[in-house]
């Protein structure tokens, strides 16, 4: 074709209709909102007939997986309605449990049945309702029997799902502090002046723990 000077784009002929159709396709695809004919033409080379290109594109997509649809006075590409079911997909996202949740869970596991007040006492900070709710929702803890003390506080215990997730047969399989220390998970030196206590050899988890914590 004739080489027209660059600046005067108007001297160019409009691109062939097939090319205009490509342009409309790309713009409708990339745009975050439906695009009006006027907007299309403002983007396309001078002399383009966006309405006609859209019409061609619409025909091309007939029966395909996506369609060119009119939204008000603008145009957009949308999934064919019969394929909507493909878009609904359950994605499972794995996220790390928060530190507060882990600690709360650990306390319930080691001290069950355990009230919220006890969890707070052990953690030394208050436990947010959300943390407990999250663990309940995950079905890693559940409500145990109410404590028969004034106020009859609810207790929490771990669930079979919890044991399953962590590959434990029962909560007593949880390693004790001694083992934690042996595994290098606890590196602290013994607190100055700590007096070893309780040489009882109770098998009960609770007592076991007590013994382990106070000792050394």
């Amino acid at each position, binding site marked *: 074709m004739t080489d027209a000077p660059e600046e005067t784009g108007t001297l160019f002929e409009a691109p062939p209709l097939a090319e205009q159709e490509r342009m409309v396709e790309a713009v409708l695809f990339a745009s975050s909102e439906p695009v009006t004919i006027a907007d299309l033409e403002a983007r396309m080379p001078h002399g383009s007939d966006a309405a006609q290109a859209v019409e061609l594109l619409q025909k091309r997509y007939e029966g395909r997986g996506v369609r060119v649809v009119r939204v008000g006075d603008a145009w957009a590409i949308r*999934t064919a309605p019969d394929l909507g079911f493909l878009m609904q997909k359950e994605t499972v*996202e794995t996220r790390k449990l928060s530190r507060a949740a882990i600690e709360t869970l650990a306390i319930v596991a080691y001290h069950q049945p355990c009230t919220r007040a*006890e969890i707070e006492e052990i*953690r030394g900070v208050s436990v947010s309702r959300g943390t407990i709710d999250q663990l309940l929702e995950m079905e890693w803890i559940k409500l145990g029997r109410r404590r028969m003390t004034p106020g009859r*506080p609810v207790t929490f215990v771990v669930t079979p799902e919890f044991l399953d997730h*962590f590959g434990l047969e029962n909560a007593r399989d949880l390693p004790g502090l001694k083992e*934690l220390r042996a595994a290098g998970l606890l590196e602290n030196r013994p607190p100055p002046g700590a007096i070893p206590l309780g040489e009882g050899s109770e098998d009960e988890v609770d007592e076991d723990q007590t013994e382990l914590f106070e000792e050394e």
Partner: protein
Amino acid sequence: MNDNLFSEDPVSVADRLAAEALIVDVDGFEGPLDVLLTLSRTQKVDLRKISVLALAQQYLTFVEKARALRIELAADYLVMAAWLAFLKSRLLLPPDPDDEGPSGEELAAHLAFQLERLQAMRDAAARLMARDQLGRDFFRRGQGEDITRIRTVTYSATLLDLMQGYARIRTRDEFRPFVMDRDAVFTMEQALERMRPLIGFAGTWTDMETYLPDGWDADPVRRRSATAATFAASLELVKEGHMEMKQSETFAPIHLRKRTETRD
């Protein structure tokens, strides 16, 4: 050509300007290798055929000039200068048969390789950046709203996380000031303090055991102490007229309730 760029011979104004530009611009260099690469361009040869000796000389001159202009050079520029001076001597002197280290030629070849590799990476970077780029030359779908994902979030934690979490808390605990030797003793004073506010709610007969403090019912030693203290405190409260106590038979549970004013 530019071979005499830094020599003592009179140089053209243009050359001198170029040389000074190089020096003044030392901040713009990304290390000594970059300087060497720039200097090597003055040789206008394939990097494989570069004269490392000439390059070493150029670099040493560059460092000297920088010093003369009192431009502070970073240590690695000076290290490179020292190394190149060493390389230069190796290349110029006949090889010492007793010397075990790599020959001057080997060292020079490696330097040439490094320069060629750096240049190659620069070219590759330029080619990469010249490619069509997402969001600039080609685009993704603008409307993300079509896809509706039902997001289920699964939280994961490992046994290790759990144990570390627990160890963390207990580690904290061990530094808490504890009165260790009194740990298994619940005093009557404590029991009284605990029961006074509670007794107001005991309208009906309630087993005394429910008044045991939390955490004192598992360990037999602690339980015994807590029971005794609670019993003593209960007697005290009855004596004070706040409470009534009953036990249906020997060893049966002891029941407590609030004493109301309507009662006689």
